[in-house]
């Protein structure tokens, strides 16, 4: 996908010169989205004070949870200068198969089903990973293909059937509803996972390798980094996460047929990009992506709460996405020139 997206080298924006500033810019990137988020919440709440009502916050957090989870996996893939378009289909397949486990084996312990979902997702992720890493073919094409294939399998498997709420144990259906001190359990769980992911990408070798690979794949090979293995892992993780997200999906919506998760892929990529992850790899952070997901969900929710016809949702998403990437670009350029002035003063 790289060439399809990456502006030619001489076009790319000058990046910053000192890690201190690098850090700062990443923070600025994230805080940029944070600011948008805060403003948005503030304005909405001003118009409709119940927007900050506990139950609504819970709703938004729950809706964000699986979305942000998917963003985590996608971020790992995108940072390595790839893309995974198959997540939506994986969610769908995992959602149905895992839920139908309950239908076929009542009283199955819930963790087992989560493992099953994870397994299904992992299988899909591994398939993607092998093709991209070993086959060294563009991930955009591969995952576009698996998007079709996995959804096709899903449709074949599900046919006209569906799993209904009454076939699912209450404990399972309550997962999205249980809260600790007002905060939904899954929101906490996801937050923890994302924190772990962020920490891993920042401070573990294999994590940094992903950045290196995305930043310059050829150099990564020359440097003897296990490029194939790392990219493979990224896809496997993304797949596994999508599998888990699928299980959460069925817990949240109770009724599962062959359409679950349709069209998620572009939403997740949007969240990642809005979150300040460079679509051509090498830079960006999981935290940013998660905030991106939160922002997008908040916006939809805000529209519904304000009773603004939800028809504006799409348009606002689109605009926001464009603004986000444009800002990211200009921001880095501004910062560089500021930096340059500073240096000249130093001499």
């Amino acid at each position: 996908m790289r060439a399809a997206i990456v502006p030619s080298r001489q076009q790319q924006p000058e990046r910053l010169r000192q890690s201190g500033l690098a850090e700062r810019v990443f923070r600025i990137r994230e805080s940029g989205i944070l600011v948008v988020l805060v403003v948005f919440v503030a304005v909405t709440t001003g118009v409709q004070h119940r927007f900050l009502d506990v139950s609504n916050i819970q709703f938004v957090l729950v809706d964000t949870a699986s979305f942000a989870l998917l963003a985590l996996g996608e971020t790992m893939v995108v940072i390595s200068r790839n893309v995974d378009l198959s997540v939506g289909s994986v969610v769908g397949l995992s959602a149905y198969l895992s839920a139908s486990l309950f239908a076929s084996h009542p009283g199955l312990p819930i963790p087992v089903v989560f493992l099953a979902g994870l397994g299904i997702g992992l299988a899909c992720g591994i398939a993607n990973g092998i093709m991209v890493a070993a086959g060294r073919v563009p991930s955009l094409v591969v995952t576009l293909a698996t998007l079709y294939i996995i959804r096709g399998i899903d449709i074949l498997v599900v046919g006209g059937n569906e799993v209904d709420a009454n076939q699912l144990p209450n404990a399972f259906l309550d997962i999205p509803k249980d809260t600790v001190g007002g905060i939904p359990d899954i929101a906490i769980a996801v937050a923890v996972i994302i924190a772990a992911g962020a920490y891993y990408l920042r401070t573990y070798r294999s994590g940094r390798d992903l950045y290196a690979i995305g930043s310059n794949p050829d150099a990564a090979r020359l440097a003897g980094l296990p490029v194939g293995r790392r990219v493979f892992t990224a896809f496997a993780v993304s797949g596994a996460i999508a599998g888990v997200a699928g299980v959460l999906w069925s817990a949240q919506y109770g009724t599962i047929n062959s359409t679950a998760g349709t069209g998620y892929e572009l939403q997740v990529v949007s969240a990642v990009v809005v979150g300040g992850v460079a679509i051509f790899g090498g830079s960006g952070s999981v935290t940013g992506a998660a905030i991106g997901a939160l922002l997008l969900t908040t916006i939809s929710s805000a529209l519904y709460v304000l009773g603004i016809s939800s028809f504006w949702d799409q348009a606002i998403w689109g605009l926001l996405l464009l603004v986000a990437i444009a800002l990211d670009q200009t921001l880095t350029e501004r910062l560089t020139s500021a930096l340059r002035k500073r240096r000249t003063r130093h001499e």
Partner: protein
Amino acid sequence: MSKVIRLQPALRWETGLAVVVILIVAIGSVASPDFLTGNNLFSLGLSNGEIAIMTLPMTLIIISGEIDLSVASILGMSSALLGFLWARGWPMPAIFVTLAVVGVLAGAINGLLVTRLRLPSLAVTIGTLALYRGVALILLGPNTVSDFPNAYTNLGVNAVPFTGNDMTYSTLIFIVLAIVFGVVLHATPFGRSIYAMGASAEAAQFSGIRVKRIKTILYMVSGFICALAGVLWTFRLNTAVQNNGLGLELSVVAIVLLAGVSIFGGKGSLIGVVLAVLAFAGIQNALLLTNFNQEATGIVTGALLLASVFLPNAGRLLRRLSHS
């Protein structure tokens, strides 16, 4: 080296595709005597016309090293606007002009964001994908407009005169456009420039090729063609509604890649794309005629897509395997 080795297989891919098409026709007509009936071909052309037309500009854009995911949304926006304006009693000619302008404008926005602000086209067009669909939603909201005059809606469903009732207008338009795009891409300086910038934007610029301008033009053309597709779509279904053509973009991209066009740009041929269109339409139809419904379509399409990237590289892959 691998580049070199990849070249001839890449050429062979088109022939491979031709074989696939022939196979599909063979299987199709064996599985169902109706496959090759004029009536069936007619409906086949009917239901794939718009997608087919949209693959043409997409081909040029991908060869130039970019991508446009907003095509289906532009189709939807144009369809919605058509309904919106018709419902407000605008005369058709005026509407057509407006649609053309809007389509070109939508493309221009993509193009300028990509070339002037140097933003990655994948991200940009995901953004405009949402934006343009959003405009369609805002325009029509819950409403459906379907009181278009028969004079126009017939164009969507009737056969072109003197073609023995076998050719739809959309098919005719596709054939004409395919020839035009084919000539432009393969035989003109403009087309050569597209290949050059796709293979190396910098080298193209250093050869005096106006990369930014050409890319912007390509996006504008794409916008216009998609607006046209929107009109055809609306008249074929006699329905203007906000979700017209929802999600088509991936099918369009899939067809173009299926044609062996390199997602990295610089490689691919229009013949391949025409074959890919035939394959795509053929598969769906054959599956329908053999009672597989459309369930298997996704799987077959996906499989072919994988083939399109793996087979041309088979030589390289085998070597790598033998090495390790």
